[in-house]
């Protein structure tokens, strides 16, 4: 079964072969998988070693000369560690790059907190509104998202994970309705790989379930069209990351919002990703409890 990381590597190698504007910047992670492409394109496959600040600085410099850098490592090293480089070497210089992370919130559950990045999307949010954030829920969504990012110069964050849904919806850059509730039914928005827990969690509830792999820019027009008075967000990163976006979009409409996602607390526990999903209440049973309580509290 293809995983997101393999889909990213295959697509990036193809882009390096096809488009002389594409450059890849690595900090050792995944370097061996790009070794062959590096022999074909030694000036555009750049492994700086374990130097993440330099990785983003190099990407900024490449972009200043007109290239399109793709930058890749674990989310916590790509975003958390290099936050000021992203802010200044990319954003402040007025240039973009495609940042492609692996590891997500807790793919590295057994590695501990040092390899986890639940706050990456919130950090990107703090940079300004120019960023596109892609959180694919299936490996088949990865290649089209990367190919869409390659020709532009805009800043793009592509957040890959080992968590995945059974079905791919490559066209879900806007809210895509997968289950339609009745008139004014509560809207449950599943972002990326949370969908496969959201669907069973809301089974037999009168709710509309919509999916997207693109939380930024958030499909606020779709949200306004689909939302009744109750909205539930389910995100695979820090809980509440999209609350402000949703609140702004619905500012003139009476509404209640439940924002579910990964908790802020360092659990200091290892175990598998499924354990963390459960501990954060993001498995089907946990979601069902939270969503039922929220909707029940409105007198349903």
């Amino acid at each position, binding site marked *: 079964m293809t995983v997101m990381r393999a889909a990213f590597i295959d697509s990036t190698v193809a882009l390096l072969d096809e488009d*002389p504007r594409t*450059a890849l910047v690595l900090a050792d992670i995944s370097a061996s998988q790009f070794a062959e492409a590096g022999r074909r394109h030694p*000036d*555009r496959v*750049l492994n*700086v*070693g374990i*130097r993440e*600040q*330099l990785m*983003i*600085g*190099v*990407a*900024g*410099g*490449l*972009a*200043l*000369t*007109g*290239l399109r*850098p793709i930058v890749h490592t674990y989310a916590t090293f790509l975003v958390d560690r290099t936050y*000021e*480089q992203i802010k*200044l*070497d990319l954003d*402040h*210089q*007025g240039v973009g790059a495609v940042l492609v992370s692996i590891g997500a919130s807790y793919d590295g559950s057994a590695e501990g907190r040092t390899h986890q990045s639940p706050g990456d999307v919130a950090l990107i949010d703090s940079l300004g509104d120019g960023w596109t954030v892609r959180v694919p829920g299936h490996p088949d969504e990865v290649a089209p998202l990367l190919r869409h990012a390659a020709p532009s110069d805009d800043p793009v964050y592509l957040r890959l994970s080992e968590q995945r849904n059974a079905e791919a919806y490559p066209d879900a850059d806007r809210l895509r309705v997968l289950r339609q509730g009745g008139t004014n039914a509560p809207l449950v928005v599943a972002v990326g790989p949370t969908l496969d827990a959201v669907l069973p969690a809301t089974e037999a509830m009168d709710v509309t379930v919509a999916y997207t792999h693109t939380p930024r820019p958030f499909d606020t027009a779709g949200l306004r069209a689909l939302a009744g008075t109750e909205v539930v967000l389910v995100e695979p990163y820090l809980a509440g990351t999209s609350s402000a976006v949703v609140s702004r979009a619905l500012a003139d409409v009476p509404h209640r919002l439940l924002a579910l996602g990964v908790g802020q607390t360092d659990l200091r526990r290892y175990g598998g990703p499924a354990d963390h999903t459960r501990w954060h209440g993001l498995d089907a049973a946990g979601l069902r409890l939270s969503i039922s309580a929220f909707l029940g509290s409105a007198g349903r």
Partner: protein
Amino acid sequence: MHFKSDSSGMTTTLPTDTGPRLPGLIRRLTGDEKHSPSAHSTIDVLQVLYDRVLRVTPDTVDDPERDRFLLSKGHGPAAYYAVLAAHGFIPDAWLDDLAGPHSRLGHHPDRLLVPGVEIGSGSLGHGLGLAVGTALGLRAQGLHTPRVYVLLGDAELDEGSNHEAIVYAGATGLDRLTAIVVDNSSATHGWSGGIASRFTVNGWTADAIDGRDHTALYRALTGHLPRRPHLVVARVESKG
């Protein structure tokens, strides 16, 4: 200012001397009658670069074939703005409202606001990484003529990001790159064993010279060799 075209079609600046104009331009920025231009540690390096070394003019600020100058040490940019004005990159009148509400010139430069400024800087330790990426980007596009110069301060070298870039540029023989460290002995813990050794041990060539001596500066700033990045340590008087 005089221009000629070289074989690449790129207009280059012939040697010129902006020295007599700079004190007046700097005074417009600082409103300071007491301090001579030598109070500005970078003034001589900048003057030699823009008068004699860099292949960039106001007409070629977007030309891919231009030389790049990146001011990493974005602090105290008065000398930089004065040199840019002296060479016609910006109007002299911009110097009269430094950091005002409608000014394009702030206490740290912004590349999107000032023609000829290659990077926005101010937070220390960003320019060398950007310069490495710029040199790599030029190489990947077969642009072998342009050179990338980046100016840092000795205290700026405290930032660890520089050392990531020093090692990588040396290991990969990034010979389109020249780093200039203006050394006014302001690093809190100093550089025991010298600044140049941090670079040369990683494969850079280095010249350590008097940062006020224009002849020595010119020789050092053009003293690079094939297959190795080059360092110029320009020593000036201590901040005091």
